[in-house]
């Protein structure tokens, strides 16, 4: 039953894995096991949190956006150039977010109106937006950002920076919106059954485009946070983040097939991805262990998840046909039950394997 619970509440399984990671840390050195460590990891996760919210929305509609890393870079460069050109910080950030929104809407239009598959469309814009980054920056790093801008991510009240507070609010609002508002549920409905959503009067295209647009906006915010955190903007800002964002969401139980997932789960997934990093540092292990650990855990979770789902399906199937398969009711006919539990695919494959 614990397994059933964990399968239904993927958030719980990710939370467990995080607790487990911290436990290892505690075993090595008690003093690390503190609220400060939790906050440290939180502070390092901000960018991934913001991206994971966007990824959850897009994936809920049965979409995928691999261009978020480039949007991040583009927004960071735009904000940096404007600030260095003497624009005010809020105005610069505003324009950067607007650019992100437009990039996202363009992705959405390609997917929704032109019927291009999500991965292909955003693969194209991944290159396109990255190219704009280089065009705008002229190939050079952008340095000398205003101190006030960098201060946005410097620790403030209660050990959290202003941006960290903003992200916390954003996470809560996004979680509630996706769970309880009509628009939030519409995204899941569109991802779960597009025709069905159309039938009950949901504006399918608008919902899809809006999800991509918001994702673009959030990616831009992630880019701004990135620039503020490191204090300069390299041309490669954001590269590879798309895979981390998708991996976080998937780990947190957001399905790539649309229709399921929560922001909470995705956020926990993101927190986990970052905690490996931070914990390796604390354990004085080389940072190069990061990806292999993340990859291994991601795979273990995914494969276990698949196996459990299969077992649940078998069980349902057995229940459905029990009267025929096992007339003497449960228990005595172990053979029959075993035969019944064997799935359709296994029979196909066993015969194939014997060839």
């Amino acid at each position, binding site marked *: 039953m614990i397994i059933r619970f964990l399968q239904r509440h993927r958030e719980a399984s990710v939370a467990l894995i995080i607790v487990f990671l911290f436990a290892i840390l505690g075993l090595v050195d008690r003093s690390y096991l503190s609220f400060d460590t939790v906050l440290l990891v939180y502070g390092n996760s901000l960018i991934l949190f913001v991206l994971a919210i966007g990824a959850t929305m897009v994936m809920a509609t049965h979409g995928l956006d691999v261009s978020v890393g480039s949007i991040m870079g583009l927004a960071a460069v735009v904000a940096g150039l404007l600030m260095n050109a003497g624009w005010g910080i809020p105005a610069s950030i505003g324009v950067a977010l607007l650019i992100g929104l437009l990039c996202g809407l363009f992705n959405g239009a390609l997917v929704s109106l032109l019927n291009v598959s999500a991965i292909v469309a955003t693969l194209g814009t991944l290159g396109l937006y990255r190219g704009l980054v280089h065009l705008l920056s002229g190939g050079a790093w952008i340095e000398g950002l205003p101190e006030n801008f960098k201060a946005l991510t410097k620790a403030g009240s209660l050990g959290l920076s202003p941006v960290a507070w903003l992200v916390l609010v954003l996470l809560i609002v996004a979680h509630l919106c996706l769970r309880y508002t009509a628009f939030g549920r519409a995204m899941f409905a569109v991802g779960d*059954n597009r025709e069905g959503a*159309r*039938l009950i*009067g949901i504006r399918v295209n608008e919902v899809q485009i809006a999800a991509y647009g918001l994702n673009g906006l959030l990616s831009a915010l992630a880019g701004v946070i990135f620039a503020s955190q490191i204090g300069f903007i390299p041309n490669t800002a954001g590269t590879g983040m798309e895979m981390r964002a998708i991996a976080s969401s998937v780990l947190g139980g957001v399905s790539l097939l649309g229709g399921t997932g929560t922001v909470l789960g995705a956020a926990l997934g993101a927190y986990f991805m970052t905690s490996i990093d931070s914990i390796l540092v604390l354990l004085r292990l080389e940072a190069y262990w990061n990806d292999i650990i993340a990859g291994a855990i991601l795979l273990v979770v995914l494969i276990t998840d698949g196996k459990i789902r299969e077992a649940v399906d078998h069980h349902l199937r057995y229940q459905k*046909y029990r009267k025929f398969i096992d007339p003497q009711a449960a228990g005595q006919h172990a053979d029959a039950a075993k035969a019944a539990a064997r799935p*359709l695919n296994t029979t*196909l494959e066993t015969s194939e394997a014997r060839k």
Partner: protein
Amino acid sequence: MAGTSPTDQHTPLVEARQIWKFFGSIAVLRGVDLTLRPGEVHALLGGNGAGKSTLMKMIAGLHRLDRGELLVCGEDASAMTPVTARQAGIHLVPQEPMLFPSLSVEENVLMHVPGNRKELRARLETMIAEIGAGMTLSTQAGQLEVADQQMVEILRGLIRDARILILDEPTSALTPREVGKLFERIRALTAQGVGIFFISHKLGEIREIADIVSILRDGQVVLAGAPKTFSDAEIVAAMTHVEGKEGFTLGHAAAAPAERGPERLRVEGLAGEGFADVTFSLHAGEILGLAGVVGSGRTELAETIYGIRPAARGRILVEGKPLSSHGPRDSLDAGVVYLPEDRQVSGLFVNAPLVWNASALVLHRGREWLPLAQERADFSEQIKLLGIVCASGDQPVRTLSGGNQQKVLLAKCLAAGPRVLILDEPTRGVDVAVRADIYRLIDRLAGEGLAILLISSDHEEVERLSHRVLVMNHGYPGGMLEGSDITINAIARLSFGVGANLDAAQ
């Protein structure tokens, strides 16, 4: 704007005039006229492909009409979208449930319904209790059985306060009791002035609930009026009237061969997913009909013999040799070939060339290097043999008509050189001429000594073709009919069984 009130008894809720609709170059609706008045149940009858569902989807805004006029409450609705249809108070309960499989029952029903959640949930709960459906609100819709999924669709329609409710075969998976409850709701709604389109294949239901019936055939209304003004025979004739049908329905199949051929397939006490205690034998040159209502375990039995589903108990012997824990490949090697009931989903590769489809079952017998010329030559032979109408073997299957697609599927099965051929609904969704071709082919194959297991929901078809008939009832063998005992009535009686009669009488 006339500003007509929607409750005005004289303004029809829906008025369709000379509606045309094309899919590709095929006319699906050809000048349909239809009217729905407030408080009226308007039944639609017609065979597969007659255009009923297309017409209803058009009224719900899912399809745009190509020509003609559509008025909803007296206002032009020819540019209707699902969103405006919703605003006009139209709700469609589709034939195939269009639910959100990952979402809960509650979300499925209440999604996109304006109003207070708590109140809506309370209303939904009373509604479920009233209609007597046993389901919890938190269940994932994807885990429900088909009947419950259909019920969720109906609940969706009921809770929306629709003024125009379209029910596309709502009763096909419901029990008689549930149908009774549904009819009570329908009467309550019509009393409030709601107009209802009701599609069904069951004449009894239509006589019970409908005020008007329109019969569609080939995209046209061929008969319309109050149900009581027509006899059953008139209605059936209007639905199925086709030139030349007598040519193949008259007369019985060739009598069973005087001397039975050797035994090809033997099934002993077989049990599996959805059936149990099935025993029969099938001989060379014999056509064994497997009848029963949908859901009686026929397809599951066939798939178990073919090795798609696991058997729980019992034995399968092909020409004396046992087949157990086998897959399709083993069955094919043993000479057992299965023609699946749903050709689009599990039978054909609709985007692949015809030639690839025809050779799909024999690929594993050849060498790694494909004999492309041979493949092509084999297929031209099959074109001649089965009378497949096509431009070339390279065209994709989807460009063919339903009947020709079915012939390609038959070609695929025959290419495997079957000793035992299992045909699951071999004439579903094909026109009359192709149906006649397929009947002749089945007769001929049996005459050549093939052992055929014929699964069909069409009792007439079973009666016409089979030498013996095994009738399934709720997963168990309901009886075996032979020779002159094979009548449509006997098949129907056995498929419903004694228990079901009592049920219906309640």
